[in-house]
């Protein structure tokens, strides 16, 4: 397998069923040595044990911790080939309620942290590599209360393109995966008629919500130098077509 023995660092994997976790599992299944990272050590340790990988806690808003994350990954596994940033949680606030104190944490995590993640990832990719950031449909279609959240992601989407230019000669590719409406796997079949789903399905050409696997497969393709070697500076919308908007029915 072309990903065999490559090292992938994934931050934002300390949940139980989020994108970071799904991506880590997919890459491990395909032969990667995974270094899973996030703020909560307990779920990370469990995931690392499951995937026979490494767990390193890291708060992406702390530069020293990002630096240390990549140093550890490089030291422990000998290389860094793939880096995926899935960190950053949702916060919403209408502009009418914004204060500097409210804005700063999102900036620290989803903008400053994301930029520094790119720097330290690239620093350790001496054999070339693939860096990805998880962006959002909210950074494509404007929605109320998302000025800070979406603008941070939108800003990083552009920074990804700058990074693609800066690191192209070193064969380090930078791409962004913009996730649309993605659903957790429902264990309870009782809630098939989720009102939220009903509201959004008419706007999705593929007429379904996404699954974490949709994101994971995209990340797998972008991680693989044999599958996407000429793709860089790209924003891939994994949204079932919702990102386009459309004329009213």
């Amino acid at each position, binding site marked *: 397998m072309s990903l065999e023995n490559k090292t992938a660092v994934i931050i934002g994997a300390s949940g139980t*069923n989020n994108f970071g976790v799904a991506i880590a599992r997919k890459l491990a299944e395909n032969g990667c040595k995974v270094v899973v990272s996030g703020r909560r050590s307990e779920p990370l340790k469990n995931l690392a044990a499951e995937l026979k990988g490494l767990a390193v806690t890291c708060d992406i808003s702390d530069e020293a911790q990002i630096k240390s994350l990549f140093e550890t990954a490089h030291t422990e596994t000998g290389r860094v080939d793939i880096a995926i940033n899935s960190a950053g949680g949702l916060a*919403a*606030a209408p502009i009418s*309620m914004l204060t500097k104190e409210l804005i700063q944490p999102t900036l620290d995590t989803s903008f400053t942290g994301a930029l520094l993640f790119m720097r330290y990832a690239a620093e350790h990719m001496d054999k070339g590599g693939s860096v990805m950031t998880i962006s959002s*449909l909210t950074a494509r279609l404007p929605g109320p209360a998302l000025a800070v959240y979406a603008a941070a992601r939108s800003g990083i989407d552009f920074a990804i393109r700058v990074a693609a230019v800066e690191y192209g000669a070193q064969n380090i590719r930078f791409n962004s995966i913009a996730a649309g409406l993605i659903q957790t796997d429902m264990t309870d079949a009782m*809630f098939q008629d*989720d*009102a*939220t789903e009903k*509201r959004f399905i008419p706007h999705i050409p593929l007429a379904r919500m996404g699954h974490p696997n949709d994101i994971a497969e995209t990340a797998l393709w972008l991680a693989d130098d044999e599958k996407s070697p000429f793709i860089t500076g790209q924003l891939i919308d994994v949204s079932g077509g919702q990102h386009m908007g459309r004329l009213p029915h």
Partner: protein
Amino acid sequence: MGSEERLDISAHSAGISYQDLIASDRVQAPDVLKMVSPIDLPTTKVPVSQFTTREFHDLEMAKLWPKVWQMACREEEIPREGDHIIYEIGKYSIIVIRTAEGIKAHHNSCLHRGRRLRDRDGRVFQFTCPFHGFTWNIDGSLKHIPSRWDFPDIVDEEFGLPSAKVGTWGGWVFINMDENAEPLQDFLGVLPDHFKIWQPENCYIQAHVAKIMATNWKVVQEAFMEAYHVIMTHPQMLPGIGDENSQYDVWGNISRAVTPNGTPSPHLSYNPDEQAMFDAMSDRRMDAPPIVEIPEGMTARGTSAAGSRQTANDLTGREVSDAELVDSIYYTVFPNFHPWSPFNRIQYRFRPYQDDHRKSVMEVYFLAPFKGERPAPAKTHWLTEQQDWTDAEELGMLARVFNQDSMNLPNVQIGLEAAQNEEVIFSRYQETKIRHFHHLLNEYISRA
């Protein structure tokens, strides 16, 4: 706003999210309810000993209560110069008094031989100790010592009553015994901004009920900081309450929960119709007719809002949203004060009862908007440990809900004291407010 970030929060129930629910309301929610700020804090497990031991109570008395802003009373309770209340927390006793220069707070002990200066609330123009007659002005400065010649070492200017800091917000008076404490406004952070539209300063105390509870103060407080317990403790509400799809947010020292009503619980295995939802919301008795027959095409949520909208609009001078009229919006100001939004009227305060780690005082205020002349604030109605909440008729239907909570509470204390496990565990999302509380509590307790 879409729900594509559900996975990142990793926390939501299968039900509709609060933001999606209010997006479809006929009269739109105010911006403050469109704020979303989930937090992932490290505290998930807390030692049982924090709820059951004298030692931890003493730690709180040394490290928390003397160092934190806490709600002492409302301005309307001390409207005139000389009006005062005695604020007690554990062993501490503080006179909160209105002077010509604003509200002041003095420690309630005579500097001669320690007698409590004031035994009860009231109105005075000086503090005269009933033991030997040492007297202070209400601003705390020394006024008179009988046989002054007999105390040559006392320097008048240095013999003022030790005071606590006072801050006010929303008609509430807060005190802080730490003279180096940050200003109240800094401590409250976003709260004044959030409550701008609700103006608690323009409300009055319509009811004030206080009850002694047979639990540590944190045990009873935490029972009112989440909607997770509705499924077992208030099951009659399930057809009309989105307990499991409540939204929980944190900003600094403030936390908030929003539990929507007029939407069915995701725990139910069936979809109740709008009438069934409304009947649950209005606590219809099995043998009573419905309060309102929901018209064809209308929703329980919309009907409930419409029922109280006229009064609310009159009182506030604006079009009040469905969410404000129907949903339970409950904030917490660390450590023990819980202002709800005004159309719920509820405000809670929880304190240790005297210096007992196994007893507490739960207080329920009803704060209501008014028009015209300010009504007189209700006096405190004390209930004993043995009394039911329903003995406070002024609480209406809510008293029956409190009785359901009260069936659990003493058993929680007993169970904690019998526990062989060393920690209690809190859920990641629905118990956010409790986790946030313990995270901050640990910060105070850990300080030198």
